[in-house]
């Protein structure tokens, strides 16, 4: 009951076409923004939405401990529920949590073979089979295309889609195709690219690739106070 309410109220649905996922299996999506604009909050909302639909989400964080990642979920879930005016939510988040698995790595210790080994630990013992993967804090600055290629192959094998956060800098000039320099060498690997833009008191969500911009532009906003996605259409 509560779950259904939350799904229906989720403005993210305007991304998907008729309830389908935005990304197909093996595809990459990226959320671009400078520090502090709400990349992680955005991803966590994607994850919560998937979890509400009983999909398994693997959240990989490369710079935050497990406890902190859990806090993101708890906070955003609470805000989401508050906005929907749903009371008596005790237990709903707890019911969702088995659909999530958090893995954290040190940035320098994160390699694709290591990730695959960890995932095999989980899938071989039938503990967790992810359907969606989030990677928060991947070091695009080093722009190693090979690592991303390997990840893409892995995603294809597992049949999952992957969302990345990409940390951009305000002073950087975009490339000729309008891509931030961080993605210059690997931009073609991404099927959907969204940019969060802080404009005045609002944060807009601009699709750079993969989604027709009129479907989203001027409609979706990130509330700067709660970092919740809002539909103004």
């Amino acid at each position, binding site marked *: 009951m509560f779950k259904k309410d939350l799904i229906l109220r989720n403005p993210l649905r305007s991304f998907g076409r008729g309830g389908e996922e935005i990304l197909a299996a093996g595809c990459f999506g990226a959320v671009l923004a400078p520090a502090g604009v709400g990349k992680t909050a955005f991803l966590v909302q994607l994850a919560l939405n998937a979890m509400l639909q009983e999909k398994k989400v693997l959240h990989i964080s490369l710079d935050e401990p497990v406890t902190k990642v*859990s806090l993101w979920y708890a906070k955003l879930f609470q805000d989401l529920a508050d906005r929907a005016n749903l009371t008596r939510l005790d237990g709903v988040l707890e019911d969702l949590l088995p659909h999530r*698995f958090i*893995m*954290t790595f040190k940035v320098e*210790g994160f390699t694709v073979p290591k990730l695959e080994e*960890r995932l*095999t630990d989980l899938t071989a013992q039938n503990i967790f089979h992810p359907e969606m993967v989030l990677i928060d804090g991947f070091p695009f600055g080093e722009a190693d295309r090979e690592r991303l290629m390997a990840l893409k192959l892995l995603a294809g094998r597992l049949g999952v889609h992957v969302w990345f956060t990409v940390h951009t800098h305000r002073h950087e000039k975009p490339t000729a195709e309008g891509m931030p320099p961080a993605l210059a060498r690997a931009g073609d690997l991404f099927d959907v690219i969204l940019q969060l833009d802080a404009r005045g008191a609002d944060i807009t969500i601009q699709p750079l690739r993969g989604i027709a911009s009129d479907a989203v532009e001027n409609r979706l906003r990130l509330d700067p106070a709660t970092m919740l996605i809002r539909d103004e259409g």
Partner: protein
Amino acid sequence: MKSDIQKVRNIGISAHIDSGKTTLSERILFYTKRIHAIHDVKGKDGVGATMDSMELEKERGITIASAATFCEWMGHEINIIDTPGHVDFTIEVERSLRVLDGAVLVLCSVGGVQSQSITVDQQMKRYKVPSIAFINKCDRSGADPARVIAQLRAKLGHNAVALQIPIGLEMNFQGVVDLVDMKALYFDGENGEVVRVEEIPAELRDEAAARRTEMVEAASMFSDELMEAALEEREIPREILISALRAGTIRRELTPVLMGSAYKNKAVQPLLDTVCALLPCPSDVENTALDMDNDESPVTLESNPDKPVVALAFKLEDGPYGQLTYIRVYQGSIAKGSTIVNVRTGKKVKVGRVVRMHADQMEDIESVSAGYIGALFGIECASGDTFVSQGVNLTMTSMYVPEPVISLAIVPKDNKAQINMSKALNRFTKEDPTFRCHVDAETNETIIEGMGELHLEVYVERMKREYAAEVTTGNPRVAYRETITQRAEFNYTHRKQTGGSGQYGRVAGWIEPVADEEFVFENKVTGGSIPTQFIAACEKGFRSCLSKGPKLEFPVTGVKIVINDGASHTVDSSDIAFQAAARGAFREGYAKAKPVIHEPVMKVVVETPTEFQGPVIGLLNQRRGMIVGAQDEGPMSVIEAHVPLAEMFGFSTALRSSTQGKAQFTMEFAMYKLVPQSIAEKIAEEVAARKKNAA
């Protein structure tokens, strides 16, 4: 008492069991002239080492309780807190780590970094305790300090830097080369008390020079002055080298390594010199307290003896003259005759005797000031209490005490054991707020409650050893709870007509679930259908049903009762009649409100070498665990999960066997959660079986 805080060291000696920690402590006390003869740990001469004062420890050669011992070395005052080396005594360990400023990590030169050393190291990391390593037992065959240093780097991730190299090893272990002063040190005399300083033997000169260069390189990361001197290949002043090493040590970015053999009385004195030179003094370490007036927000304490007092009672001991309370003063000073306040109870206490302890002997002193460790006599308090000056409301430990989640019935063997058992329980409940006991009104059994299986086992063992109270224990029981999941109405009439005056009362209303409250009672009766004087009786009747729920006799929580109607009789209604009516109404409503069982779920955090991550996750999953996440931290991984307490019995053994004993875990209560249907049925069967047995 001297008052140069720069010359005070509060240190712990942490180690793997059998790496010679207690022997080392014993030698330190001998060289600092606190004791005048040396005894062996295993007590061949029947006296035993001085630091282990508990029987159990003497027998097993391990240390459980942390005694604080004072000694002096080269003008420095050193307090040695004997820390338990065993993981299972966590409260003890955490309390003693709390009062330490630095530690000596003792390693065996043969065994090297063993799983227990990993545990101890993790604990020190958690409390950010700077440490120096001492590689003991260099006289044993198979001794290889260089290998241990490599393990310190690889397994524990320490930036380990040797300050010494051994002169000979195994049978031929003679002494050490000091790389700071570039001298050879030998230890003469019957007990190695005479340190003979000589030139480095010719065959070791090259190696010593190479190792010294390594050490200077490592230290130069912490001092620009040293870096310059090293680059310009100038003579390096001793002070600069020492201060660079010290800076690295205090920041926990460098671990100086010393070596020797405590048992053969070799190289203990240089260790003491290093403790004085490199480990922090109390004012180098930042300590924080929690402000009770400000939602327990942290406050930094100043180790200034003139400020208001903040002190922590970290250990209690029953002595021949009453209770002895070990305290560490963080701020201000506690003098004989002064008045202090126990934050937990709010009671004022007058300080009688102030003493300084040396294991079992003591010395009277005038006062204990900030940064020092001492003991007070005749102070009523529990372990972990904070003492402050009047008007201050700070606490060193959070006042939050979790509810026990597991219970165990204990039965004394005989009458003598009965008396001793009550003495022991009285003492333990004072020492540890999470340990409780009560007598079950129905079975007349003594029930002890605590935070986990091991927690209770340790106390049962201590009862036997320290108080000679032989007890038999029942099976541990998980503290399940009952609650309801929906609103239901009740309308119950209690009527009894058996000679004399009858009983009559009718109670109507509804029962509904409520979050975050144990029990709520609301009276919405209008028009006097239940006379006001009987409302309290109704509430009492409802309350009396809470301790044993109608479903499986577990305590009921999260229930709201609203009464809105009823009836009474002018003659036959009474308090008792309405209490009975309320009990009947509760049973009637409760049955319709879909009662369920909740079980305690623990937050389990396992720290394991990364290669065992898969098996550990599998192990947690088998136990109905919900894995929150896995954190990769280089050689170690941390796995966090929520696991029902009922499934955690025997977990430590299973964990040990599937990780070669290299993983450790902590467990704390997280929440109560609905029991799955299949498990609830099993619990119902168990309860039925238990009832049948009792009958």
